Every structure is written in structure tokens, then in C-alpha cells.
């Protein structure tokens, strides 16, 4: 059974104090905290079987390789990929996106269209802008409405035989909107376009099934799923991954090298040049195990309760406005107090031991749309409690009193 008090005991950091107050960590959309079970795996790796993988004949190397490949299988199972070699280890979502963008630079030509959503994180805008500069393709934006939802009829209208790629996040990092990716994938495929879904903000809450979605690429970061930083994944359909050229040259990614010609290794190694973050990959697998042991149904049900509680309590504060009011949302609340800068609110909350994010959340186009400098963003994880939300609410009230 889901018991938040038991779960909280798994996270050593949750018992520390900040500015003399018990930490209330509500910046989970930036990075999640790490349970002891994952920390133990990291310590265990360096204490027992730290070695380079895929090369050594010695026992440690074999053990490390086995664990690393087991982690790949865990990720494969979690996302229900058809093959383990469709899972590429990367340093995170940004790296995964760049890998695909770079690959497409050889496949695109002038006049081709790339569609991105207005809800994107900067990391999902800049690589495509660079790609368009290199290839002469056009970057077109699927607009959003006042609720922070994508305007689907506009998306339909943008699709054409020129559309080669569609990039949308599964969940918006700034607003928490869950986008209708099933529809987007289906429609894009009618025009033969490939679809990449950024799962950085969805994977902490939802368990995606890449085969059921029929998605071409799906990317995620370990550190938002109770895993370590500097580790992530790219899922790509085998047919697409075979088509894309390697991203970086180096060891691991080659089959045979002479000065005349290099033959690339098979998937997934073709995209994994150099010594990877071995410990990170293994810990990513452990984090996925940890979250699955709790269960994503239980996680999303509980987080939804937190979201409803926080929304209700925060809206009781006069002059507080929530940005992103889509019916389909993950446990993220972006808000502002009327006439008060989000930075000021964040500073006061920090003094009270409450960690939130303030600013534009790397999504400046969204802030421009609402004509605001930024927001205060509180994002909840399954280890947060209603009591912590009440601490946030009284903190916001205090900030309002001090800053008005």
C-alpha cells in the first residue's frame, strides 16, 4: 500500500534543515531527490565492481558490463520498447534531443518543415533552430491558448507533405500541461513525419508505452526519476536509429577502423561513443525499479491529490494567479502574486526552508505569451505531503504580507 511516511524514510535528504527550518522540497520538476536504494547502488558500483565495460576480459569488467546491460533491459521493459538496442544511453534529455537533431541534419532539405510546440523548454527549441540554419528547413510553432494547452486545429493546419519532424513535450515543464501526444503522433504519421516526444517531465509521473504510442523517438532524464544527474536515455525505433548517422566519433561506437574507412558498430553502440556514465546507467535502472515498486498508478493518483489540495489552498490567497490551467496536468503549479515579482516570493520562501523554482523555467516564449517576467513554480513528487503544501501556502501568505 502507498504510504508516504514510509516512502519519505527512503530519502535521507528530506530530513535535513534549510535556514534552520525543515526542508520542504517542491522543486521536483527541476530534479527529483534520490532514495537510499539508488544511493546504495551508486556506492555499491564504486565499492565493488567499478570497471570499464564492453572491453575487458576480466571479471570486474564483465560484472560492470552485465549490470549496465541489465539496466538497459530495465529501461526497455519500463518503456515497453521492442528491442533493448532501441534504448540509447545518453547524458540526459538535452543530449538525446541533440543526437536526433544532428542525425536529421543529413535527412532534411530546404523547404522541409519541423513543427515544435509553443510549450517547449529551450533545450527543445535551440537544437531545431540550429538544424534549420544548417539545412534550410523551416521551424513552425504549434501555438498554445490561455490555459496553456496546444491549439490542436492549428497543429492540424500546419501539417503538410513538407512536415518531416514533429517535436512536442509530453508534459510542459513550466505549466505541467499533459499534451495529447497520441493524437499528435497519429496525425503526424499520416503525413510520413517522424515524432520525437520529450518525456523529461512526464516520466516522473507517467509510464509511457512507446509501442502503443507508436512514437518514433522518446527521450528522458534519470535525475527527474529519482536517478542520478548526467544520465538519460533515447528510445528510437530500430528503423529510425539505423537511418540516423552516428553523433560522436570515438571508442565503443566502431566495429572496425582502418585509416581508409571505419565501420560503425551495431545499435545501440553506434550512438554510444567513449566510456559512458556506467554507474549512472546502472543507477538509472535502480531508480526505475524503485519507482515501479511503488507503482506509477499509485504515484499519479497520490500526486493528483497533492495537486488538487495545493490548487485549492493557493487559490484562496487573494491576488494569486495560476498559469497553466489545462484539465490534463501533472503535479506542477506555476503562479504569481499580483504586483509581486516571482523572485521576491522565491527568496522569502527559501528563508522559510521551502525550495521552489522562480524565473522563466527555460521557457521564455511561454512567459512572453502571458506577458510576465516569470513565475513561482511549485512541483510535487510522490514523497511530498499535504502538510508540506500547507507550509508552502502559509509561506506564500507571509511573502505576500512582507512584499505588498
Amino acid at each position, binding site marked *: 500500500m502507498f504510504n508516504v511516511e514510509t516512502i519519505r524514510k527512503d530519502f535521507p535528504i528530506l530530513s535535513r534543515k534549510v*535556514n534552520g527550518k525543515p526542508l520542504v522540497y517542491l522543486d521536483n520538476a527541476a530534479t527529483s531527490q534520490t532514495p537510499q536504494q539508488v544511493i546504495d547502488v551508486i556506492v555499491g558500483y564504486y565499492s565493488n565492481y567499478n570497471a570499464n565495460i564492453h572491453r575487458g576480459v576480466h571479471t570486474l569488467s564483465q560484472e560492470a558490463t552485465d549490470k549496465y546491460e541489465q539496466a538497459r533491459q530495465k529501461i526497455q521493459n519500463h518503456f515497453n520498447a521492442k528491442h533493448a538496442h532501441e534504448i540509447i544511453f545518453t547524458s540526459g534529455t538535452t543530449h538525446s534531443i541533440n543526437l536526433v537533431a544532428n542525425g536529421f541534419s543529413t535527412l532534411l532539405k530546404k523547404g522541409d518543415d519541423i513543427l515544435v510546440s509553443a510549450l517547449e523548454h529551450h533545450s527543445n527549441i535551440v537544437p531545431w533552430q540550429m538544424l534549420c540554419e544548417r539545412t534550410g528547413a523551416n521551424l513552425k510553432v504549434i501555438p498554445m491558448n490561455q490555459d496553456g494547452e496546444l491549439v490542436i486545429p492549428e497543429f492540424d493546419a500546419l501539417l503538410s507533405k513538407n512536415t518531416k519532424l514533429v517535436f512536442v513535450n509530453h508534459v510542459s515543464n513550466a505549466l505541467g500541461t499533459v499534451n495529447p501526444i497520441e493524437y499528435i503522433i497519429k496525425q503526424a504519421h499520416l503525413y510520413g513525419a517522424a515524432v520525437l516526444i520529450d518525456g523529461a517531465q512526464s516520466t516522473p509521473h507517467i509510464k509511457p508505452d512507446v509501442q502503443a504510442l507508436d512514437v518514433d523517438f522518446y527521450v528522458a532524464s534519470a535525475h527527474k526519476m529519482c536517478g542520478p544527474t548526467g544520465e538519460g536515455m533515447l528510445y528510437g525505433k530500430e528503423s529510425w536509429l539505423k537511418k540516423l548517422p552516428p553523433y560522436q566519433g570515438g571508442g565503443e561506437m566502431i566495429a572496425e577502423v582502418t585509416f581508409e574507412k571505419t565501420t560503425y558498430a551495431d545499435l545501440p553502440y553506434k550512438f554510444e561513443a567513449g566510456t559512458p556514465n556506467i554507474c549512472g546507467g546502472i543507477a538509472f535502472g535502480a531508480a526505475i525499479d524503485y519507482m515501479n515498486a511503488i507503482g506509477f498508478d499509485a504515484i499519479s493518483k497520490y500526486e493528483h491529490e497533492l495537486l488538487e489540495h495545493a490548487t485549492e489552498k493557493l487559490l484562496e490567497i487573494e491576488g494569486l494567479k495560476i498559469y497553466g490551467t489545462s484539465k490534463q496536468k501533472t503535479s506542477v503549479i506555476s503562479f504569481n502574486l499580483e504586483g509581486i*515579482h516571482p523572485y521576491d516570493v522565491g527568496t522569502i520562501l527559501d528563508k522559510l526552508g521551502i525550495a521552489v523554482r522562480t524565473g522563466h523555467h527555460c521557457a521564455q516564449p511561454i512567459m512572453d505569451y502571458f506577458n510576465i517576467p516569470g513565475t513561482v513554480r511549485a512541483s510535487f513528487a510522490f514523497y511530498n505531503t499535504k502538510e508540506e503544501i500547507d507550509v508552502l501556502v502559509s509561506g506564500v501568505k507571509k511573502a505576500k504580507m512582507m512584499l505588498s
Partner: protein
Amino acid sequence: MSIKDIQNEIIDEFSMFEDWEERYQYMIDLGKDLPLIDDQYKTDSNIIKGCQSKVWVHADLKDDKIEFTADSDAIITKGIIAILIRVFSNQHPKDIIDADMDFIDKIGLKEHLSPTRANGLVSMIKQLKMYAIAYQTQLK
């Protein structure tokens, strides 16, 4: 008053407060007395980089002394820049350049001194001193 005297005066004022809340409240109040920048100078080129909130600063030379005006869209940041301007305004460029900034630590705002801090106190000090260096060159 010299820069040192003003700094000591501010240290005295802040020493009366018992907790962060009173300190911040006072800082917010100081922000309300900030000599406001004229609208014509509130341009993008006068924005100090490295702050999460916007801070505009303008400097004028009057009788060999620099007069600073500023503004910010965040109220705590406004308090911080107001303290800096109280210290630096109506001072000779050379004294501004040579000023020691230890007093920040003594008024309990050390946490804002970290170069990665989003409010950019370090950038503000740097920018004010840059103005002093520019005017010092003019005076020579």
C-alpha cells in the same frame, strides 16, 4: 560622510534586528527610498546582467562626485541596490573603486554575495564600480 562611515551606519541599523524577517523587511523599506532612475535611462543597455529580476542603473557626475539612480522590478533586489547606492552615491570615483565591501557580510546578506546567486549582488557591485572607473578616467 565617507563610504566607511555610511557602511558603519548601515551596520548599526541592521544590528538592531533579531531575525532574517526584520532584516528583509528593513531592506524592503530601504528599497522604497531608492533614488529612482529617470525613465529615459530605463533602457535595455542599462540593465545589469546576471540578475533574475531586472535592475537598471544610471550614473551622473556632479562636482567630481557620482550620483547613482536605479530601479528594479523586484522589491528585494530594489532594497539591495538601494543599500549599495546609499554607500556609493555622492562619492568620488576613486573612493568607490577602492571601497571595501565587507559590510555586506556584517549586515547578514552574505548569502547574496555568491557569484551564482540569481539576484546578482556581485554583478551590481561590479557595475557600480565600472561606472566609477569610467568617470575616474574622464576626470584625469
